[in-house]
């Protein structure tokens, strides 16, 4: 099937055989349920104007002399010269839709996300496929064969070598199904990213965003729904988070912050200018904002600064069955359900029990009977190091954080506690090269 690089630049003639110009770009649009864009028009550079603006691919504007011809007027696409069905005067020019892709302008040579490989790659060539007389964008060539073809060097290779680099289905060819374009400074923007992207693991998505860098990364992030964006944001370093949300509209950022866990949201807000943080907090839902404000009041290096306020508590008089119900009700919000904390009416911490102990207890037993009263806890003002040491010494999954009166304010999960200690060792292992 034809590669775009083999088509672009071909002469185009009208029905009388008069040469009009050459093929400059191919326009494809998504139609119906078909995931592959279908070729809908050709952009032809008219001979009289050719050469004037060839180098101006960066710009959005179409140069003078370029015409869009609907694909229905094209007699044969894959031919040494492309014949049209009428004279140019008899053809109504194609009016591009908002979501149409100009394959050369928008895709060729640009970066694109390979969803299966979870990486950012550059498009060397595009392969079209013919189905029932229509042409579809089938595959993306990111391999060395595409590069050599573009440079006109593929033909120079001996036939056997050529076959081995340009083999169909080779590592350099990926289906359009498995990629997601990123577009910037173009009319076309990634408005609704497909399921391909939102289905990725947040950690993979975070890696793609960091690979894209600040500018394209924030474009991609902005196009995600709040929940997916929050998941991905939580996986990147705080200073990079701040850069990513810098150009995003406040409403969107506020939505994302609501979806993030309060401790992560507080970390991000602390990284932003104070004025912006204030207005973001005002835009957030009252409850979420209150949680985050509370956390923001604690110094960065303290247990209060890294704790989360989403945990499960019950009162001592409750039974095991009631405790189970409490877990079911709030499990989706809580950071961990492996520990349930027992408090009195004034939120004073009285005990703790594990999920295992709860499951093994008879449903009617009051939790006071099986909870531990000797609790390892830290003070709001304790340092992160203290928290980390406690976590690793007693092999805890989480540590409760209390104030001077013993009231429970939050918990620090093991990963958060260690996160703050480990990074100096390897997390910052030259994340990107130059600094």
């Amino acid at each position, binding site marked *: 099937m034809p590669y775009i690089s083999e088509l672009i630049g071909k002469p185009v003639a009208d029905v009388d055989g008069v040469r009009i110009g050459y093929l400059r770009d191919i326009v494809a649009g998504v139609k119906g349920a078909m995931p592959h864009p279908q070729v809908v028009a050709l952009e032809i550079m008219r001979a009289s104007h050719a050469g004037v603006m060839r180098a101006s691919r960066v710009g959005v504007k179409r140069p003078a002399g370029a015409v869009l011809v609907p694909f229905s007027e094209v007699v044969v696409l894959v031919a040494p010269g492309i014949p049209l069905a009428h004279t140019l005067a008899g053809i109504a020019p194609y009016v591009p839709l908002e979501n149409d892709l100009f394959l050369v302008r928008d895709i060729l040579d640009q970066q694109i996300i390979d969803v299966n490989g979870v990486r950012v790659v550059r498009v060397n060539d595009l392969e079209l496929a013919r189905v029932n007389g229509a042409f579809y964008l089938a595959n993306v060539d990111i391999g060395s064969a595409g590069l050599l073809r573009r440079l006109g060097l593929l033909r120079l290779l001996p036939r056997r070598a050529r076959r081995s680099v340009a083999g169909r289905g080779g590592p350099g060819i990926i289906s359009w199904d498995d990629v997601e374009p990123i577009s910037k400074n173009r009319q076309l923007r990634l408005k609704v990213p497909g399921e391909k992207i939102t289905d990725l693991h947040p950690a993979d998505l975070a890696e793609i965003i960091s690979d894209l860098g600040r500018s394209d990364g924030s474009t991609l992030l902005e196009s995600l729904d709040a929940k997916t964006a929050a998941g991905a944001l939580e996986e990147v370093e705080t200073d990079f988070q701040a850069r990513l949300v810098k150009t995003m509209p406040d409403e969107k950022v506020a939505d994302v912050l609501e979806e993030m866990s309060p401790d992560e949201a507080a970390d991000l807000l602390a990284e932003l200018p104070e004025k912006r943080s204030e207005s973001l907090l005002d835009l957030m839902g009252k409850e979420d904002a209150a949680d985050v404000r509370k956390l923001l009041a604690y*110094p960065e290096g303290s247990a209060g600064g890294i704790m989360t306020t989403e945990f499960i508590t019950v009162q001592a008089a409750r039974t095991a069955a009631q405790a189970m119900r409490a877990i079911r009700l709030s499990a989706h919000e809580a950071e961990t359900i492996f520990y349930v904390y027992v408090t009195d009416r004034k939120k004073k911490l009285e005990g703790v029990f594990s999920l295992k102990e709860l499951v093994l207890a008879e449903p009617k037993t009051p939790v006071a009977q099986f909870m531990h009263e000797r609790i390892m806890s830290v003070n709001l003002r304790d340092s992160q190091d203290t928290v980390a040491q406690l976590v690793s010494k007693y092999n805890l999954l989480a540590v409760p954080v209390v104030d001077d009166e013993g009231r429970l304010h939050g918990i620090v999960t093991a990963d958060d506690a260690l996160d703050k200690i480990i990074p100096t060792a390897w997390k910052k292992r030259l994340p990107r090269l130059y600094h």
Partner: protein
Amino acid sequence: MRFSHRFRPLAARLALLASVIGPGIITANVDNDAGGITTYSIAGAHFGYTILWIMPLLAVVLIIVQELSARLGVVTGKGLADLIRESLGVRVTALVVGVLLIANLANTVSEFAGVAAGMEIFGVSKFISVPIAAVLVWLLIVRGNYRTVERVFLVASAIYLAYVAAGILEHPDWPLIGRSLVTPQFHFEKGYITILITIIGTTIAPWMQFYQQSAIADKGLEPSDYAYERIDVIIGSLFAIGVAVFITISCAATLHASGNRIETAKDAALALRSLAGPYASILFAVGLLNASVFSAAILPLSTAYVFCEAFGWESGVSRRIGEAPAFFGIFTAIIVIGAGIILLPVRSLVQMMILSQTLNGILLPLILVVMLILVNNRGLMGEKFVNGKFLNTVSITVIVLLTALTGMLVVTSLAG
């Protein structure tokens, strides 16, 4: 309301400036590499202070060119190779990247030549010093973590002050230096014109624009950091030229005054021993060694990044070798080939330096024109950062001048 203890107080905003600064200073320091030091030494030894007037002008030109690159990086968040590929297509990219590869390889060879020369002054054979340096550089980048690398580079930048010390130790004629810096004087003789062009060619080299822009993009700087980044570029350029001035002075004050003529930076260091005492000589040698190792680390790295940007391969030091084979392959190959050539019984390493400068000269006008096209693209730069009329006039003047001069350099080195 007691909003938070965690917001940065005003004093810490200065830390923000410090966090932006880096790409400009490191780029400018790598600029004073083995080739640069050799050129400035020869210039000082042969022509004394009469060559100094070019330096302030050179500082202005360097700032203008590096500012273009900084602005592109800050606004687009992409490397120069990225932008060339995306806006000018694969053929221009392949041409530019191909020439850059050869030029950078030749540059790297001359860096290892600098290592060899620097250690030979201390009586260490190149068969010991060059392999050790190559392995160290490789390990530093591949195995080292960010903090170590940054610290090493910062210390390395400070070592350039060795040249300032060497210059001062020789008690040069300061009033004369002051006058020479501001009084243009031109000699119509072949050697003088050649060295003048060579100074320009070695100071404004194409890899710098690529490296600096990649560094800025990779650091994630953004339009709001532009003011700080411009300070970075200006400080870096002034520091680099300042060091160049002192290298020239230390050779001019002694070697030129006593009529010594030199071929290499090593000659200069050795000649300084008898003329200015052991300390000046040692400082000079340490400076050369440091500059060579520093640049031998950055140049292969920069080349690997440019390739991966242009062709969309996985890159990044934080990746495992298996994840980014092309990146580590290019990086390693350039170091191995660069160090390997030095160990071969080659006739003259000066030729290698001339080759790299010639290729730089061919590439520079091309790069500058491409940068000018990009920086004038309203769609890419936006209204605020697009080149204005005044800046365009200045940039075009500078580019025409540099093109003419580097054209002369290419012609002379091809003829010679």
